[in-house]
């Protein structure tokens, strides 16, 4: 399939009287934040997507977990994650003001715990890495963990208290972005992009699935895990992004049970990762599997079982909660797990994709970076390591 979210204006499509300044292909969280930021800086923006506000953020838990999700070899990405986390409060305030909607930002912190000696050793290693990286993270005994979160299983052997890893509700965030975009004059065309238009060696818009054309001064490809499949993009520019499936559950904490958990709780349970993200409205998100199965979004018995098994081991009381939703989404993942941000070798074409686990966290910094890139100025320094050119020059045969 070569189609990726594009747009449709209505039954009859009229040729636009003049090209839009910026065409954003893909109206997920990354496309929306890009469109909003570009529109706020004075550009005419059109977003192409059959269902704006959809995509991976509909499924994501919304952890803003720069510190607890640190991995060896991802120190460069850490800097970007921290920078985006730092911008979150102001970003949320501005978005809530612009949209008149709340987005469920909750500065609740995270507790990452271990349930047996092996998992404890793993967590100790993570703690050492966090401290070496200058991050705030406090080691707690099992009892101290349970004093903070009494619903935790008695078997908890220790944990990391990370007060800087917060959460936001990605569904409310994308809904607010749609509203903010509309208020800022962004035009939504509800259709699929069939192919990128390239005129005179420059990205010039897109051909839609109804055959019509949309001309644009600049194009941003923000199609999530589908970004690597848009026809018409020169092969050396096509982002090497693949889908990584994640199954996520939603439970509901009845009012009488509250406060069930007061912060995000996560663990590695015998090698597999599980997290529970409690919202103020009673929603409890349990995630997530990580599967390389292409564009499959089936919810499987095994996926649900493993999540519930591990979550139950961590917080036994979840068995009493209504299971209100099971869903699978696709994380757009690049070969180095980091996003591709900014201009490509094809003049006029920018990328904003490959955010993997961090799309929600990286929304603020992505919006700012893309708005700066679209304005034609120098790319902000924090975006330097994430230029799409890091892949185009080496093609994919060479190691880096």
């Amino acid at each position, binding site marked *: 399939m070569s189609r990726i979210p594009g747009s449709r204006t209505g039954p009859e499509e009229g040729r636009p009287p003049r090209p839009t300044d910026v065409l954003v292909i893909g109206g997920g969280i990354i496309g929306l934040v890009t469109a909003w930021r570009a529109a706020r800086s004075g550009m005419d923006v059109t977003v192409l997507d059959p269902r704006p506000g959809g995509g991976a953020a509909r499924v994501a838990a919304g952890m803003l977990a720069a510190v607890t999700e640190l*991995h060896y070899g991802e120190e460069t990405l850490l800097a970007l994650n921290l920078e985006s986390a730092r911008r979150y409060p102001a970003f949320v305030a501005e978005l809530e003001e612009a949209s008149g909607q709340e987005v469920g930002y909750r500065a609740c912190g995270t507790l990452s715990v271990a349930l047996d000696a092996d998992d404890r050793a793993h967590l100790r290693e993570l703690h050492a890495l966090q401290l070496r990286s200058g991050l705030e993270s406090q080691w707690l005994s099992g009892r101290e963990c349970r004093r903070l979160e009494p619903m935790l299983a008695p078997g908890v052997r220790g944990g990391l208290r990370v007060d800087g890893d917060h959460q936001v509700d990605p569904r409310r965030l994308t809904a607010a972005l749609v509203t903010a975009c509309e208020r800022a004059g962004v035009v939504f065309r509800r259709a699929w992009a069939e192919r990128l238009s390239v005129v005179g060696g420059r990205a010039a818009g897109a051909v839609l699935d109804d055959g019509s054309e949309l001309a644009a001064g600049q194009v941003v490809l923000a199609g999530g895990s589908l970004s690597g499949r848009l026809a018409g993009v020169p092969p050396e520019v096509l982002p090497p992004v693949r889908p990584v499936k994640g199954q996520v559950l939603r439970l509901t904490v009845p009012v009488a049970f509250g406060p069930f958990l007061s912060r995000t709780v996560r663990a590695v349970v*015998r090698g597999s990762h599980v997290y529970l993200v409690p919202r103020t409205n009673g929603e409890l998100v349990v995630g997530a599997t990580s599967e390389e*199965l292409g564009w499959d979004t089936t919810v499987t018995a095994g996926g649900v079982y493993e999540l519930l098994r591990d979550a139950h081991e961590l917080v036994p009381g979840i068995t009493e909660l209504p299971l209100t939703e099971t869903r699978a989404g696709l994380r757009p993942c690049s070969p180095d797990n980091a996003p591709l941000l900014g201009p490509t070798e094809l003049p006029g074409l920018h990328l904003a994709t490959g955010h993997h686990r961090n799309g929600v966290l990286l929304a603020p910094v992505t919006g700012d970076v893309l708005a700066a890139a679209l304005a034609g100025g120098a790319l902000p320094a924090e975006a330097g390591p994430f230029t799409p050119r890091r892949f185009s020059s080496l093609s994919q045969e060479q*190691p880096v």
Partner: protein
Amino acid sequence: MSDDRLVIADTAFDSRLIMGTGGAPSLRLLERSLIASGTELTTVAMRRVDPTVQGSVISVLTRLGIRVLPNTAGCFTAGEAVLTARLAREALGTDWVKLEVVADERTLLPDPIELLDAAETLVDDGFTVLPYTNDDPVLAQKLEDVGCAAIMPLGSPIGSGLGIRNPHNFSLITERAGVPVILDAGAGTASDAAFAMELGCAAVMLASAVTRAQEPVLMAEAMRHAVEAGRLAHRAGRIPRRHFAEASSPVTGLAALDPERPAF
């Protein structure tokens, strides 16, 4: 091409290091690790990968020219394992399979009865079967008897990094086997891999030791050297162990460096 190649079911390999792909931090690090390891044969869990997806693990292996060895990780019964192997054959066009049938999630130890059942079924169905097995010389013999193309005993549980816990069993297996014996699971660092080769293993298979190392690419390179060194040592033949010293320098006769001037 060396004159000491690993041969499994009439297929020869220069590298005696078989890599796994599970737990890789990123596709790019996996790719660099595979290159550094020099591997020519790499396993992929068929339950976790759709081979048709572009940019996936399979396309990395294809690009690097590394032969894909599908495994049946995550199977608890012979029935599941046979089904998974058949789906893998259809999807990848290979009748090679690394057969794993584990008994429980906590230890991931092989279930010997289900394993032997599945091995027999798959061999009869035309598969080239490489079974992940306990370090049990009797079971190893039975797996060879039903027609497995190699025997892959564990040194210690998957991902434990505890090395080879029962070297004597490994010697018993390698001394009697008529097919290649490949250490599977347990290698934590380079010396474990070298030790396996010294014990007569034909190859070493590992994943976590590299993918979960702080510097996966460096560890992959270390493993390549360890396997080569251990193989050479095995072929060279170690010296007998002695209780007391035996001087390596001559103790009689003194060197006369200048024939004109005696040493004394």
